């Protein structure tokens, strides 16, 4: 295991940690908006960390480029989705919603 | 070029015509295109049947890839025979539907109707011709999707729930078939039917193959509406537009029967299915129940279309019964009845369609007094109805004759008696309608509207009626083909006839 691998795994672990904390937040936070907040923030940071970790695993070829594209894409779409969600929730006058975890899954696919 | 590719044409022609129809866009040219294509397909399939009868099985490698790797189209007598029926009925129904759908389908949807019809035809031909188990599933789905669409085109809102029920049941059936084919594939590593047949023999008693058989039989039984799984059929046939019902009743379930025959005899082999698995008892039981229960229900219906729909389920019972007798004559009677039943049900539903065209209803009460006012339509209905009953000189008699002969060959005296008893029930449900038509006075409200149906409906209807009688007298064409097909199927499975 060389140096790059160690860094990469550290990054990956950090990424999973944030993703996991986001998931916990989704369950534990009291209302809709806080949940979206938890999910979207951790989502972005987890994506960055994980992809960075994966980048270190590649040998800087086509796959590297693909990963970077994916990262860029995620960084554009994921916050937008959260934003759209929150805005339409307010538009619809919704404050408390119990089925949020599933709704999160939905927005990801809609993009 | 044509000569060599004849085997593929019955699928390809309607398949190409369907998108062309969308591009044409206007109803009239589409109708002409559809009828022409369907007519060509029926001529080609006649030619194919002739070739098959004289020179033997046609095998066609699509894409030039040989059998177990590529998809093979394989035409033997059995599918050529059914193909002739399907394409011919399709052509006649198209002729019939030109006027019929005017009253039953919104004008804006006529183009889609013909397109869906072509797709359905392509799917059915594909199911018949293909020699590949998975390809069969794909074509099954083409025809099914087109069928759901066709059923739901009617103006009556009840067609929607009927179509949905059909969709759910049909998809479950197709998925079961998919599971079954998957299990077979898992065990044998091939999808080609012939290859499957030879390799299944190596694993005859394997539990996986047993399960595969069970799933395929159940799946196909849903598609062909065998008794306890028939619930989708009556509402779908009742509420669909008449032209659609005429087409489906005489082709779709028949093709499913063919699929059952193909799987049982060609792929699994009769001795495995019947000797080792004892399927014949189950099939026979359900077939007999279907004959009695559904004929009885048919006699209880207020709507003529649903009477005939239940009658279809009962008639499918006869076909399955023929298969379950496990001898050449029985199988032959099954195949023969596929063809013959297509002729009778086609004519009957066309007649009902003609009545619907004039009266906007298919209730028995609408039939009152029609004997005088629509004499030609009702005469056609009468003759085709007699054929359903199995009166001599009609095709119904011929298939029943062979079925009973087959039962007696196997010394199933009770089965023979049951078959004949079943036709008594047919007397009841057909008789009710005829009585209303000939011996009751029409309701006041209807009197003014009634006149004979237009020629464009009468001609295809009467062609079928005449075919009913012609093939009931000169049986050489149908019986020879069916006999040959049945013998071939028994040989294919490399098993001798199962003697009691």
């Amino acid at each position: 295991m060389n140096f790059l691998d160690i860094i990469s795994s550290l990054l990956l672990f950090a990424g999973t940690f944030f993703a996991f904390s986001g998931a916990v937040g989704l369950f534990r936070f009291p209302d809709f908006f806080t949940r979206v907040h938890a999910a979207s923030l951790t989502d972005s940071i987890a994506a960055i960390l994980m992809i960075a970790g994966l980048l270190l695993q590649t040998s800087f070829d086509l796959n590297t480029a693909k990963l970077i594209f994916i990262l860029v894409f995620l960084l554009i779409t994921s916050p937008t989705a959260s934003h759209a969600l929150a805005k339409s929730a307010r538009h619809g006058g919704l404050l408390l919603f119990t089925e949020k975890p599933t709704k999160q899954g939905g927005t990801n696919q809609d993009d | 070029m044509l000569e060599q590719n004849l085997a593929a044409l019955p699928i390809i022609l309607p398949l190409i015509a369907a998108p062309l129809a969308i591009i044409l866009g206007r109803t009239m040219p589409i109708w002409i295109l559809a009828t022409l294509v369907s007519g060509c397909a029926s001529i080609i399939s006649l030619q194919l049947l002739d070739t098959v009868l004289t020179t033997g099985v046609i095998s066609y490698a699509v894409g030039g890839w040989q059998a177990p790797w590529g998809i093979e189209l394989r035409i033997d007598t059995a599918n050529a025979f059914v193909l002739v029926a399907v394409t011919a009925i399709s052509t006649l129904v198209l002729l019939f539907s030109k006027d019929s759908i005017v009253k039953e389908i919104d004008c804006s949807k006529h183009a889609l109707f013909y397109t869906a019809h072509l797709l359905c035809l392509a799917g059915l031909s594909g199911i018949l011709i293909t020699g590949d188990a998975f390809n069969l599933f794909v074509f099954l789905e083409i025809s099914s999707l087109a069928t759901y669409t066709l059923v739901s085109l009617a103006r009556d809102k009840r067609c929607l729930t009927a179509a949905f029920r059909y969709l759910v049941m049909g998809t479950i059936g197709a998925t079961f078939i998919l599971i079954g084919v998957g299990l077979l594939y898992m065990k044998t590593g091939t999808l080609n039917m012939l290859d499957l047949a030879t390799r299944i023999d190596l694993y005859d008693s394997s539990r996986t193959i047993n399960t595969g058989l069970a799933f395929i039989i159940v799946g196909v039984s849903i598609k062909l509406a065998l008794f306890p799984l028939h619930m989708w059929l009556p509402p779908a046939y009742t509420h669909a537009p008449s032209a659609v019902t005429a087409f489906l009743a005489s082709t779709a379930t028949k093709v499913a029967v063919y699929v059952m025959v193909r799987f049982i005899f060609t792929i699994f082999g009769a001795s495995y299915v019947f000797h080792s698995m004892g399927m014949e008892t189950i099939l026979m039981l359900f077939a007999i129940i279907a004959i009695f229960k559904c004929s009885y229900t048919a006699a209880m219906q207020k709507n003529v279309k649903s009477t005939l729909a239940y009658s279809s389920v009962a008639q499918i019972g006869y076909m399955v019964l023929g298969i379950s007798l496990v001898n050449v004559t029985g199988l032959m009677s099954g195949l023969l009845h596929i063809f013959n039943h297509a002729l009778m049900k086609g004519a009957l539903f066309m007649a009902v369609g003609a009545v619907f065209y004039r009266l906007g209803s298919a209730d028995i009460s609408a039939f009152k007094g029609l004997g005088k006012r629509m004499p030609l339509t009702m005469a056609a209905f009468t003759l085709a109805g007699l054929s359903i009953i199995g009166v001599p000189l009609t095709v119904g008699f011929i298939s029943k004759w062979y079925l009973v002969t087959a039962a007696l060959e196997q010394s199933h005296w009770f089965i023979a008696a049951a078959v004949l008893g079943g036709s008594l029930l047919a007397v009841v449900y057909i008789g009710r309608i005829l009585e209303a038509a000939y011996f009751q006075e029409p309701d006041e409200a209807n009197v003014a509207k009634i006149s004979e149906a237009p020629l464009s409906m009468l001609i295809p209807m009467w062609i079928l009626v005449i075919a009913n009688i012609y093939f009931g007298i000169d049986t050489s064409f149908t019986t020879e083909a069916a006999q040959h097909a049945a013998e071939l199927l028994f040989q294919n499975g490399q098993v001798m006839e199962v003697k009691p």
Partner: protein
Amino acid sequence: MNLILDYYNYWIVVFLMMTGFYIVISANNLVKKVVGLNIFQTSVFMMYISMGKVAGGTAPIVVDDNTLYSNPLPHVLILTAIVVGVATTAVGLSLIIRIKRAYGTVEENEFEHEDDAI
């Protein structure tokens, strides 16, 4: 133990299939029926893909000469089947929309009075 290792995948897939099948036949709501149908079919797809797997193999895209590849044929079949599935779903859902418009309901037990239950 061997038995479990050999077949655990299939057993879970069978369980999934049956869950989907159960939803289809027991659900009251037509949309849920369609969801069930999709779950049912997707599970069947998994059965197919499972059988194509070769332990230690890779995706059937040529890398070099000495690689062990999984079987491409089930993949092809399931690609087809997925598309078939979505086609059915689309038609089914359109039917549901029309049913809602015609009857005002998409609950199975609310049709029964109108002699055309699903």
